[in-house]
């Protein structure tokens, strides 16, 4: 799914229909981000409390008065700040003396402000000498990665499949899903073209090998197994590249019947949903670094919303890498349509001794190219020319990005309906799931063999 706007069109005329659902997603997204901020705060408090308890343990259980505790932290931070200022001056001098062809010296990292417990919490800890329950809870939540992403997807799915989503909200929750895309665009502030080309080149290799490979495999396997061409065609495009959008794009080419289409969509959604909820834990179990996980999710998960959600779930660095691979992948939609035209229309015509149908390649590319990725390239270029300072990059690529993602993921969670997943079935389902699993396993092996260094966005 490049976008996911199936069934709803952005226009002022449709706004009244979309508004209730959009507001619902905003409120739901806000609640999840509030949950994230609270549990994250408790988790940081947990680490500080753990440090204090350990110091107190060594010093016979005595806690310093709160005033001493804050003064000591401020003193230590002031020392780190002074060291940073010296280092940043040295860095600037080195940049000034830099000659053409030399590598840029690395910018020193600004020291983070120390996290201090609130006075009441510090005093409670000093008195009880036991870890407060809410800190332990926050720490467990972070350990199990139950962040805003997980909450929006799990709770959203639960709501959709138990109490349901009222009809008045449905259009808006569908329209909320593409709000992930402005987040993808503004994330561009974290990239330089050199990173993009480095990871993009490897990403291109992965996309050609695994994404196009899957499409070609399903096309031939479907033909050998005598699966209806319409069904095999939409399944190949959907499982190979980009979920629902690619399936819709190729449906007219292969004369898919509505039943074929819904079987394929059911398979795509089922696999994508399973991947979304299992990949972050598989990645952890396999000890995948963030960049490696990002590359894996970008290659193996079938649609933009799901892969962005899984990568965000894993961490910010994973998201940076997954985003590049995804940009390369969705740029391939026109090529997927061209392959389908060749395999299902041109090749059979030639085999039957007929004349090959002429294909207007430029028209296919122009019509099917997802233009939102141009926005991402513009932001990368702005960053390349130094148009963003670090604080602006963080506001765009971390804070506003979370707002956009939260609204979008709320829409994704509230639209995971088990009834849609049940539509998958038949031989084509087996072919689709086997091919998608094969792609996931082989791409995991490939990205782990390639290693984190290649996929890291610096």
């Amino acid at each position, binding site marked *: 799914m490049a976008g996911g*706007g199936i069934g709803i069109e952005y226009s002022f005329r449709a706004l009244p229909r979309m508004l209730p659902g959009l507001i619902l997603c905003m409120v739901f997204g806000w609640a999840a981000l509030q949950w994230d901020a609270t549990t994250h705060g408790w988790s940081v408090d947990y680490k500080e409390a753990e440090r204090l308890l350990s110091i107190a343990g060594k010093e016979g259980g005595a806690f310093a008065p709160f005033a001493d505790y804050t003064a000591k932290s401020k003193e230590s931070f002031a020392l780190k700040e002074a060291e940073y200022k010296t280092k940043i001056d040295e860095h600037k001098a080195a940049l000034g003396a830099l000659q053409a062809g030399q590598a840029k010296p690395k910018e020193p990292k600004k020291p983070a402000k120390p996290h201090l417990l609130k006075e009441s919490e510090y005093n409670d800890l000093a008195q009880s000498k036991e870890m407060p329950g809410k800190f332990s809870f926050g720490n467990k939540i972070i350990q199990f990665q139950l962040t805003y992403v997980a909450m929006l997807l799990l709770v959203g799915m639960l709501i959709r499949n138990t109490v349901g989503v009222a009809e008045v909200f449905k259009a808006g929750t569908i329209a909320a899903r593409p709000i992930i895309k402005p987040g993808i665009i503004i994330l561009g502030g974290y990239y330089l073209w050199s990173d993009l080309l480095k990871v993009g080149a490897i990403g291109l290799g992965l996309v050609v090998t695994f994404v196009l490979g899957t499409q070609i495999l399903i096309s031939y396997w479907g033909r050998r197994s005598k699966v209806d061409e319409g069904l095999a065609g939409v399944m190949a495009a959907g499982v190979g590249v980009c979920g629902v959008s690619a399936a819709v794009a190729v449906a007219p080419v292969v004369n898919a019947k*509505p039943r074929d289409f819904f079987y394929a969509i059911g398979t795509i959604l089922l696999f994508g949903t399973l991947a979304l909820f299992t990949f972050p834990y598989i990645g952890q179990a396999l000890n995948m670094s963030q960049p490696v996980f990002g590359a894996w999710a970008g290659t193996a998960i079938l649609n933009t919303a799901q892969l962005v959600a899984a990568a965000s779930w894993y961490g910010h660095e994973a998201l940076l890498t997954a985003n590049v691979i995804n940009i390369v992948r969705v740029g391939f939609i026109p090529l997927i349509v061209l392959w389908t035209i060749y395999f299902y229309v041109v090749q059979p015509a030639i085999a039957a001794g007929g004349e090959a149908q002429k294909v207007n390649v430029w028209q296919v590319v122009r019509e099917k190219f997802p233009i939102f990725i141009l926005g991402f390239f513009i*932001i990368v270029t702005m960053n390349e020319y130094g148009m963003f300072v670090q604080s602006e990059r963080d506001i765009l690529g971390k804070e506003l990005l979370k707002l956009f993602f939260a609204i979008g993921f709320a829409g994704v969670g509230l639209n995971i309906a088990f009834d849609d997943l049940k539509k998958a079935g038949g031989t084509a389902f087996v072919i689709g799931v086997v091919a998608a699993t094969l792609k996931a396993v082989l791409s995991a092996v490939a990205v782990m063999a390639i290693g984190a260094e290649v996929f890291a966005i610096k």
Partner: protein
Amino acid sequence: MPSEFEKKAQDTFSAERKEDVFVLILAAIAVVLVKLGVIGPSFVKSLFF
């Protein structure tokens, strides 16, 4: 006469184009507001308790 899916595909891609334009505008507004300093480092934090 276009088939059901030809029509569906045309409608989908027309809707996705509009959607892409909408998200480009949304991203542009976000960048302009950040560059103008309207959205500063404390903006998002101020939305939460």
